[in-house]
Each structure stands twice: as C-alpha cells, then as structure tokens.
C-alpha cells in the first residue's frame, strides 16, 4: 500500500492539525441538516396508502416509520463505509460495490440460506458480514500483491472481482433454484421494510459511531503504512478493524435492503469536493449526504410509477454511474 | 520540391506555427532545428499531412497534401513520427512489408519483396527480419520503422527526431544511412534533430525556427555561426572548427 501515490493520500494531509474547518460556521451544516430532515419527513408522508383513511395511524407506525428509519440508517452507514474504504485503500474510487464487498455479502447470504435453512435473520447477517469481511480482505490482499496500482485500475479490479463472485452466486442460485429470490433480494429496495424487519439495522448505527471514534486513526491510515507506523499507529490492526466495520455495515445492509450501488462513492467524493479533505469534520456531512441521497432516490422510486415502486438501487445505479463517470473525468482532467 | 505558402496553426490560444512561407528544394538532407516549442514538429507533421493547418497550402512534389488522394500521396511522401506505439505483434519483415501497402494494397508482389529486401539490407536488418518487434531493443526497432519508411519507396521522406532513444553509436549509423539514402537513392530527406552538431555534420541545409517562425535558412556553414545560434537558442553558443564541419559548443558560458 505504501508505494501508492493515489490521490486519496492528500485527503488528510491538506488539513493542518489544530485547524477545524468545521468550526468556521455552523450555518451550512444546519442548513444541510434541515434539507435532510425535510427529505426524511417527506419520506414519511409519501406513499400509496392514504394516511387519513381508517388505520392510517397504524400504517404509519408499521411501514412508514420503519422504512424511513431504515433509509436513514442504511444511507449513512453505506456512505461512511465508502469513506472508510477509500482511506484504507488510499483510492478515491473504492466503495463496497466497487471492491466486491457487497457481492461477497450476497454470496454469504445465499450460502446461509442453503446451508442453514432454519436460521434466523441474525445468523444470516453474521454469515453475510463474515463473507463481506473475507471478500474485502481478499481485495486488499490482491491490491497489495499486484504490480498494477494505477488509481483507475483498482476499482476495475474490484468490480471484476465482484462480477466473478456474483457469477458464482448466480451459478449456485441457478443450480439450487434460488435464482428468482436472488433478483428480489439484491436489487436494493426498501419496499419490504416493515416493523419487525428493520430493527437489526440499528447495528449499523453502532458502526457509524465506531467510525466517528476512529476518525483520526483512519486519517493517519490514509497516509499509508510507513507514515502511519511512524506516527505510532498499528497499521495492520487498524486495517483489520476498519475492514470489519465496513463488512458489518455492508453485510447487514445487504441482508435487510440489498445493494445500494455507488452510494459510498458519490457522497464522500462530493463532500470532499465541496469542503476539502478533512475526515473528521467531513463525517457528519457524509452521513447527512448519504441519508439525503438515498431518501431522495427512494422517494423518486415511490412516486415515478404510482402505485408501483421502482427499487432504489436502479435509481442509484443510474445517478451513481453518471456521477462516477463525471468524477473520474474531473479528477483526470485536473491531474 | 516542398513548398509551404502562408501556413499557420494554432492550438487554442497558443500560436504554434506561422504563418510560414518556405521552399525546400528536391534532394539532399534538410535539418529542422530550434528550441522546444519552436514549431519544428508541427511544421513537419503538417507537411506530412498528419496534421491539418488552419490556413495556407502545402505541396510536395507538386501535389497538394490535403486534396491529393491519400494513396497517390503515400507513393510520393512518407513520414515517421518519433512515437510509434501499437499492440499488433509483427515481425520486422511483416512491418517492412506494410511499407509497400501504398503500392500493392497488401497483395505483395515480387517487386514488393525485392523492395523489402533492399530496405532490410540498407538498414542491416536482414538477420533480424524474422524477429518480432517486441523482442528487439529500442534502437533496433527504430531501424525497423525507418526500413518501413524506405520500403515505401517515396521521393520525400520526413522524419521527426529519428535519433530519439538511440545511443551514440546507433545515432551516428542512422545519420550515415539517411545521408546515403539521399545520395544513393536520390531521396529528399527532411528531419527534425535536437543535436545541432548532427545537422552540421550531415545536412545540406539547415532551417532554424523559433516561436513558430522560420528565422534562418542556409547551408551548415551559413547557419553555424555564433551569432545565429546564440540568437536561435537564446543561449551563448560558440562555434569552433570541427573535423570538416563546424561544431557548436555551449556547455559552459
């Protein structure tokens, strides 16, 4: 990792210690908070079911609140996961769907269904998270070994790895007649999130908190092994810790809602573009951005074809691919 | 004869070339010299119709390089650029055979084979002809490209820094071959060189350029003077007598 000259390296370097750009003024953050809150509230009141009708209150409690909470949790978790992976790999273009992490989680989920048919959702999540962890470590190991370390090749390697794992998952699913399930599982969607289904997502809230606590050390890790070791950080342990946090977030999110492509890529990069590269002061922004983006996409998905729903993953896929290409070209043109 | 009439080229806001008026007579070796960004390569590639000028007209042997049919032009004019990257895997001979494309459109005749053999022999590549290009050293590959250009059998040969990547021994050998190509095969050779002393030693004519304009045209004896070179390269240059040709010395003021 240390030979890399990836553009993620200056992420932290630009912020001199002691200066806190976030302190400049709280107003922008308050505004962002207000916008995000507005979206969240809108999400509570968008839907086919007329809440004023009889049983509206019940409906509100059973589906709207859980769905909106799930959006908040999954959105912030995936956005922050992207940020962490970008630090750990020192590459701006890495996130759970461009490193194969999500695909491994899916493979784990399918295996848990096949091998442990009676298991509850908690077991599934553990297996999926474990698979996501293994997959991310495989990705990191490949990156450490290969000669090709170009910033642009790293995400391609991750996507290809994801494609291969995904083909394997499909293969297993076809031969065990689970293919149909596979499609509905992994097309990230909040349609089926109801009370009693989403509560496990609170785990990712814990992941977010842990990342907030680790922020400074992750910043140091973003400078590479040599610098981190020199600064007294146990690099390998931090890599393991960071990877497991990302794995848990991706595993749990995959089991409950499915893939949320490009979320972890767009949000941290846009935030960095607007505010510069200070990890700690950017974290709240990344959380808010993730929530806002996924909520907005979900609302669009619910509205565009009433009374049916379009899965949020499709909209994220379109928006995300466009944003990704724009980002890559922008970075490329400048350097 | 190569003529340029009112030729100019700009990249965005940057004035790369001209307007330039120039005549390069038939035969012999002509060297384009000048500092970086003087427009030498731009002018050469415009003459070689790889780049289109914004204004003006270029003719080579009476043919307008823009309007003449590409195949007809390719039988009269060949250009070799300094960077030739391609992934196709070819042997030296296969590459040189492609130099015959303007004449045979790929169907190699006995005449073509003879021309290929001559070109290979001329560049001392006969023993290497069945080697793949990716197995050769940079200097050998450079010779293979020049052999391809010679196999094209054109009256006019343009070369953009043919000495790039060549060490001392191979650079001298390359210049000697180009000199022979002009003397024995009657070709008109125009080349861009960085080392002014190579121009002095081998060229019949030197064209010195700065800032997209032609500043001096003349024989080596006329151009190789302290005043001219110091002006062109914006560096104090002393010209001393060499072994049969003048030498520019500029390493330490």
């Amino acid at each position, binding site marked *: 990792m240390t030979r890399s000259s990836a553009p993620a390296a200056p992420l932290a370097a630009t912020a001199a210690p002691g200066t806190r750009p976030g302190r400049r003024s709280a107003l922008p953050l308050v505004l962002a908070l207000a916008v995000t809150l507005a979206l969240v509230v809108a999400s509570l009141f968008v839907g086919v079911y007329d809440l004023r009708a009889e049983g509206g209150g019940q409906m509100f409690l059973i589906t709207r609140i859980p769905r909106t909470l799930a959006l908040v949790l999954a959105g912030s978790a995936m956005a922050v996961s992207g940020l962490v992976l970008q630090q750990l790999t020192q590459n701006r273009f890495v996130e759970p769907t461009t490193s194969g992490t999500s695909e491994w989680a899916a493979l784990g989920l399918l295996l848990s269904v096949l091998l442990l048919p009676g298991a509850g959702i908690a077991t599934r999540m553990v297996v999926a998270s474990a698979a996501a962890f293994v997959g991310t470590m495989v990705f990191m190991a490949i990156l450490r070994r290969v000669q090709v370390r170009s910033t642009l*090749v790293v995400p391609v390697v991750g*996507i290809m790895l994801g494609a291969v794992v995904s083909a394997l998952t499909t293969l297993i699913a076809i031969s065990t007649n689970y293919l149909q399930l596979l499609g509905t599982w992994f097309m990230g969607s909040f349609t089926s999130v109801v009370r009693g289904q989403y509560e496990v997502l609170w785990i990712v809230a814990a992941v977010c908190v842990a990342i907030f606590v680790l922020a400074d050390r992750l910043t140091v890790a973003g400078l590479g092994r040599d610098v981190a070791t020199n600064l007294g950080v146990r690099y390998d342990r931090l890599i393991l810790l960071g990877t497991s946090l990302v794995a848990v977030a991706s595993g749990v999110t995959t089991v409950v809602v499915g893939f949320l492509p490009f979320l972890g890529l767009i949000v941290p990069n846009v935030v960095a573009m607007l505010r510069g590269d200070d990890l700690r002061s950017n974290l709240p922004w990344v959380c808010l951005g993730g929530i806002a983006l996924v909520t907005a996409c979900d609302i669009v998905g619910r509205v565009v074809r009433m009374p049916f729903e379009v899965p949020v*993953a*499709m909209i*994220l896929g379109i928006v995300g691919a466009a944003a990704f290409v724009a980002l890559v070209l922008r970075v490329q043109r400048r350097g | 004869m190569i003529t340029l009439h009112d030729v100019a080229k700009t990249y965005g806001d940057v004035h790369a070339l001209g307007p330039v008026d120039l005549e390069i007579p038939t035969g012999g070796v002509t060297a384009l010299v000048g500092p970086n960004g003087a427009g030498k390569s731009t002018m050469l590639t415009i003459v070689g119709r790889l780049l289109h000028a914004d204004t003006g007209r270029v003719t080579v042997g009476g043919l307008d390089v823009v309007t003449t049919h590409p195949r007809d032009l390719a039988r009269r004019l060949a250009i070799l650029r300094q960077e030739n*990257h391609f992934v*196709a895997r070819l*042997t030296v001979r296969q590459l040189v055979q492609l130099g015959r494309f303007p004449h045979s459109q790929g169907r190699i005749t006995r005449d073509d084979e003879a021309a290929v053999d001559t070109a290979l022999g001329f560049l001392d590549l006969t023993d290497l002809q*069945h080697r793949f290009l990716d197995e050769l050293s940079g200097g050998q590959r450079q010779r293979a490209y020049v052999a391809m250009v010679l196999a094209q059998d054109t009256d006019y040969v343009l070369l953009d820094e043919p000495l790039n990547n060549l060490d001392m021994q191979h650079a001298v050998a390359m210049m000697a071959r180009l000199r022979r190509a002009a003397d024995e095969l009657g070709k008109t050779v125009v080349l861009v060189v960085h080392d002014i002393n190579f121009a002095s030693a081998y060229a019949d004519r030197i064209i010195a350029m700065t800032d997209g304009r032609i500043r001096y045209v003349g024989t080596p004896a006329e151009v190789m003077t302290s005043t001219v070179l110091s002006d062109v390269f914006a560096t104090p240059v002393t010209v001393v007598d060499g072994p049969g040709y003048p030498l520019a010395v500029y390493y330490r003021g």
Partner: protein
Amino acid sequence: MAEVTTSPRTWSPAAAPPHAPHSGGPRWRVVVGSYGFRLTLVVLLALAAAVGILTYGNPAAPGSSGFWVIVRSRFASVGTILVVAFCQGVATVVFHTVTNNRILTPSILGFDALYRVIQTALVFLFGAGTLAATDGLGKIALQSLLMVGFASLLYGWLFTGTKANLHLLLLVGVVLGMGFGSLSTFMQRLLTPSEFDILSARLFGNISASDASYLPWGALVCVVVGTVLWRRRHVLDVVALGRETATSLGVRHQREVLLTLVLVAVLISVSTSMVGPMTFFGFVVAMLTYQVVGDSRHTRTLPMVAAVACATLLGAYFVLRHVFYAAGLVSVIIELAGGLVFLVHLLRKGLR
C-alpha cells in the same frame, strides 16, 4: 550495428520461411507449428463438438426418422452458437485493431448494455409497435446506426478528451455499462406488462431457447460483415499501426476506424439480440487466438478467431448440456471463467 549479426537467430514457428534451417527438431514439429495445421485442428474440434451436440444422447435409434427430427431441432442451437461466436470473436479482434489495445472489448466497454438501453428506449418512447413494425435488415441497420452514433459520441468524446488513457476508458466503460444496465431495467419497470413481454422476447434470449426465425438474418449479417472485413484485412493490418503510420501509408485512418466500428456495432447487436450480453467471451477467445497465431496479421487472426470462438462456445455448450445436463448455465459459466481470466490478465500483465 555489428553486434546484431552475432546474436543467435531465433526461430519462430509461424514466421519462419520454409527453407529456414530447423535445428530445433524433426519434421512433425514443423507441421504442428504451422498455422494451417492449427487452424485445421481448431475447426475439427468445433466440428466434433457440433456433431456431438446434434447426435449425443439422442433417444431415437440412429438413422431412424425420429433421430433426424431431433437432430434437425438441435440445428437451431448449433446455428445460434455459430452466429454468436462469430460475431463476438471477430468483433473483438477488429475492435482491438482499431482501438490499438488488447484488453478493452466492445462488451467490456458496455456495447451490449448500450444495445439493451437503445432497444428499451425505443419501446419506451414509441411503444411496442415500432419493434414489431421494423423487422429484418432495416431494423438491424437502424439499431446499428443508433448504436454507432451513441458509441462514437460517447467513446469518441472520451478518446479525444484525455489523450486516450486506457485505464480511464476501461473504468468509465465498465461503470457506464453498469449504469446502462440500471437505466434499461428502470425503463423496463415503467413499461406496461404487454410491452415488457414483447421487449423481453427480444432481449433475453439464450442459447437453448433462442428465436430460430432470427437465425437466417443473423447468419446473413455474419456473411456480409465477414466478407467486408476479409476484403479489408490488409487495410486493417495498416490501421493497426496507429493513425500516423497508417496515414503515412495512404490509408484514411479515421474513415476506416469509423467503418470498422459500425461493423462491430452490427455484430454485437446481432449477438446480443440472440443470446443477451456476454461480457468476457470475446476477450477470452481473442486472447486465445493471439496465443495460437503468434503474429497479428488479419489474414491469420480473422479465420482463427472465428474458428476458436465457435470451438469454444460449441465445446462449452456440449459439455455443459450433455455431460453436466446444465444447458442454462452456459453463459453464467463463461462469464465466471472469462471474468477470472480477465482479472488474472489484468493483474499480471496490466493494460497492454
């Protein structure tokens, strides 16, 4: 340059003249090393797989009328495989030639996905009637035109904007492919069920259940495009040298590249409409072909890639269908294996 005369002459099987001294071995080695022998071998392999698919596991007695009915019914599968393999293989090789690289393929850059988006957008914007109304060659021509238009706009813009950085193109192509996938699924969700039915019949073919009525058109396109490319094989050799050298040799480079891209788009459209996207198949067979042929003159690579592609796909289909009874898995397994090969190649050799 005296040192070169003393260096040992390396003997390369494909390029050595017939009278070259072979210190390396007996006569049979020369034969095995020859291009003709290798091509014959690959063609024989393809033939064997084709015969296998047609006859293996046929429940009726050989020679009986029932036997021939089953053979005839399997002809459609073999025909489909031949057309698809030809399209993917040839398209990839000439695409490599005009883009001057050996890792980007039309499929990896998202041509397949682009085809799907265009098909879906046609139905989405004009209703299912247009698809039904514009059939046959006219439709293929129109689609190819649209595809080429989009592809040259998009990729042309990328190529010119940043000095054709391969890493950039690869990443952008892959991501655009993902985006196109999402976009077409999104539009499909917005279609009425009947429109979606018509569309899915067009988009989601597979080898076992492809639309046989489309086969003659596909074969015709292959013959026409194949003939055009074969006649231009020498020009393609020159184009492979890059824009500047090709121009110096009297070839209108830009025109040739555009023409070739049009033909590539046609081939990929045919292939995708018959069996859906195949991301890595073209890459794998092109790689194999370069290995087998040695040099890259199109006189040799074009026939070989067609043969290798047919042999690979027929062989895979035969093994999976008749040995493992898993015909539905053919494309998945090719994606899996091809993806692995691509990944390994990318990691070991980089982008060359």
